[in-house]
């Protein structure tokens, strides 16, 4: 088993896959290190000034991610409610395991941090809870399909919790509850404006409106230092529930910009990395406790939804995707002193993707006819 995993890991770094030209490898593994190489720590092509300009792109990318999660959460098929509860339970267990363990370690080790240990612990818990859907093909087994749906739904709770953390740290000075309600209000109001625009326009003009609404979702949230992810999620959720074909239009239009936005987000994350003692100290516990939390959370979720969620659900959810990094970047936007967290989460995400190659159950070999 271990040997097989090692072989698969090595094969990832071969030729096309290593260049990111094959879907076999998650983009995080290529683009975060690429960002490091291009950033101030590397060649310096992405200078702090350019990274400052990319701040707007990050806000827009965060809103886009939130939007996809909102649409996915509202449009999941059968067993949606049970799966949402099970996914949220899985995310809650992961958050608790990571936050609790990190808080304990911070108290024991006395790592020098400019932020309160409990805030760092909760923030890392939120970053750890998100997971990416394993790629699905037509002939995949039921367990893998369910895991993909759980991976979509288990981002909802972390986004809400993350919005609360962002609101607590925000410099605007509004109460934390208002800081959570504000992005929801922004998301719903802009979703209404978007619905009016998208349903009554077409062609390139509609593309401009979609981009404009996404930029406003990210921009309004960034201006108020609240969560763009939550603003996007609220808008996506409303679009999926309203009549018409707005959610389909948005998905189609965003398909053109989604990939570049995500890659820019990952490159910006890599370029923003600052190596520090605290970041290095946080990295390994973050990866270990995240994997442990996912396995425990998956087991717990399978008990909550027996017959729906597979017993080895957690193994499928080890791949972190970009949401964790997005959380970390969002926290870094609203408050200073988050560099160790961004480092631990970004490098931790790269490491987790490699761990996922070993942990995720392999596809069954097709039986010979």
């Amino acid at each position, binding site marked *: 088993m271990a040997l097989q995993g090692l072989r698969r890991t090595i094969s990832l770094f071969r030729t096309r896959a290593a260049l990111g030209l094959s879907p076999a490898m998650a983009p995080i593994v290529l683009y975060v290190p690429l960002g490091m190489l291009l950033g101030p720590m590397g060649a310096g092509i992405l200078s702090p000034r350019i990274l400052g300009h990319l701040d707007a792109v990050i806000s827009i990318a965060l809103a886009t991610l939130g939007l996809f999660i909102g649409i996915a959460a509202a449009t999941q098929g059968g067993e949606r409610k049970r799966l949402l509860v099970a996914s949220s339970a899985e995310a809650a267990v992961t958050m608790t395991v990571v936050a609790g363990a990190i808080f304990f370690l911070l108290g024991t080790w006395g790592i020098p941090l400019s932020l309160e240990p409990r805030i760092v612990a909760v923030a890392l818990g939120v970053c750890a809870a998100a997971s990416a859907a394993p790629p699905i093909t037509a002939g995949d087994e039921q367990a893998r399909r369910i895991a993909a749906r759980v991976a979509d739904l288990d981002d909802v709770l972390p986004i809400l919790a993350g919005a609360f953390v962002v609101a607590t740290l925000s410099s605007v000075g509004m109460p934390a509850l208002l800081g959570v309600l504000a992005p929801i209000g922004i998301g719903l109001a802009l979703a209404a404006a978007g619905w009016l625009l998208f349903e009554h326009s077409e062609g390139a003009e509609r593309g*401009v409106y979609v981009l404009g609404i996404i930029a*406003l979702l990210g921009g309004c949230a960034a*201006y108020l230092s609240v969560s763009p992810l939550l603003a996007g999620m609220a808008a996506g959720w409303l679009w999926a529930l309203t009549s018409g074909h707005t959610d389909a239009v948005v998905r189609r239009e965003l398909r053109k910009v989604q990939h*570049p936005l995500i890659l820019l987000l990952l490159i910006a994350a890599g370029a923003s990395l600052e190596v520090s003692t605290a970041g290095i100290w946080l990295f390994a516990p973050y990866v270990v406790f995240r994997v442990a939390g996912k396995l425990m959370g998956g087991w717990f979720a399978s008990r909550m939804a027996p017959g729906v969620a597979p017993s080895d659900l957690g193994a499928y959810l080890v791949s972190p995707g970009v949401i964790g990094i997005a959380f970390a970047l969002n926290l870094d936007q609203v408050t200073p002193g988050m560099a160790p967290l961004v480092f631990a989460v970004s490098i931790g995400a790269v490491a987790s993707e490699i761990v996922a190659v070993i942990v995720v159950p392999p596809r069954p070999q097709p039986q010979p006819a």
Partner: protein
Amino acid sequence: MRRLLALPITLGIVWLVVQFGAYAELQRPTALALGFALIAAALAGGLLERIGLPRVTGYLLFGMACGPYVLNIITRPMARELQIINGLAVVLIAFIAGLEINISHLRSRLRAIVQLSGVTMLILYVGLFAGFWLLWPWLGFTGMTLLERFAVVALLTAVVASFSPTVTIALITESRAKGPLSELTLAVVILADLVLIVFFTLIMQMVRYAFGGAGEVGLLVGLTWEVFGSFAFGAAAGALFALYLLYVGREVPLVLLAFCAVIAGVKAPLHIEPLLAALAAGLVVENVVTSRGDSLKEAAERGALPVLVIFFAAAGASLQLDALAAIGWLAVTVSALRLALIWFGARRGASVSNIEAPTGQLVWMGLVSQAGVTLGLAMLVAAEYPTWGVTVQTLVVALIALHQLIGPVLFRAALARAGELGQLDREAGPELLETLPERGVI
């Protein structure tokens, strides 16, 4: 018209956010300004198109109305943030223009283009020089010798005679126009831009001599580098991009964005003119890898609309209306003179170069706009000669405000009369456009 209901919602949210966000220690207005400009300017452009005016005028008017001088919804910091996009926008717009220029297609018309440009510019330069000489008492320059007056008038002539390749290309792209008038206007404007850079540099040498400074020997070297170096750099970058399209061809939008950012970014360290470099890059891609160039052109043109909206909204928000108010009558007089000279010059040029009607009769309408290049030159003058250069800058800024509003309206009317509006869409057909995402182009 239902979508207009989205405008008050958007306005209301942005207003509320700006009010609450005023208390934030760290304001990050870029994405907010981008989103608001995209939605509101696009709606304004759509409204103006309904009454037969160009969309870009709607974007400009929106920028003016919401900008710092009128409603102040787009505040000064937001307008500044929008300007950051301009560097990228100019490169993308010029790159698209390069993709439109097929050398083998233009070769047969080169003589006519040079003749038309030459006659138009000669009449414009001579006429403006005479006009400024006569208007001297009202221009606000005092205590100058005859030589200094001659130099300043020549400098004013060079700056005010300039055209705007950016606006011309943007309007052609946005209105999906194609045909002899679009091609001819584009060629004349680009040629005039090249001549302008040479002329301006030489006249600045004369001004330095007239005002007692030493001419810079290195200036000619700098000029050569700025023109030929920009072309060489752009051609090399275009060749690399073409190779990437041929042999990799993945993540094209992201690579195109990085490509534009690199060309825009090397302006300061390498003294490269981004417009010329991007134009050369587009030329290489179009004429070297035609097969991929066509699909890239479609993708770039489709993706250019949001960039154009932002570009013109930012230009509108940055129009210095106070300058226009301060010397309005003088600006209107100079503008009228310039317009008359362009009309006369282009018609004479078309007649000399045997360009047939209606192209020959309409080409002058595409030469009125002025924008970034003109402003950049005026800022150079003001920076080097703060005493009288500021007067030049004020006059030029006021003229740009006028020509930004008049120019696009005239050019769109000309394209409409020539039957070239939307010609690209008619040629492409719905099938090609629908298959772009599937082919991985966008």
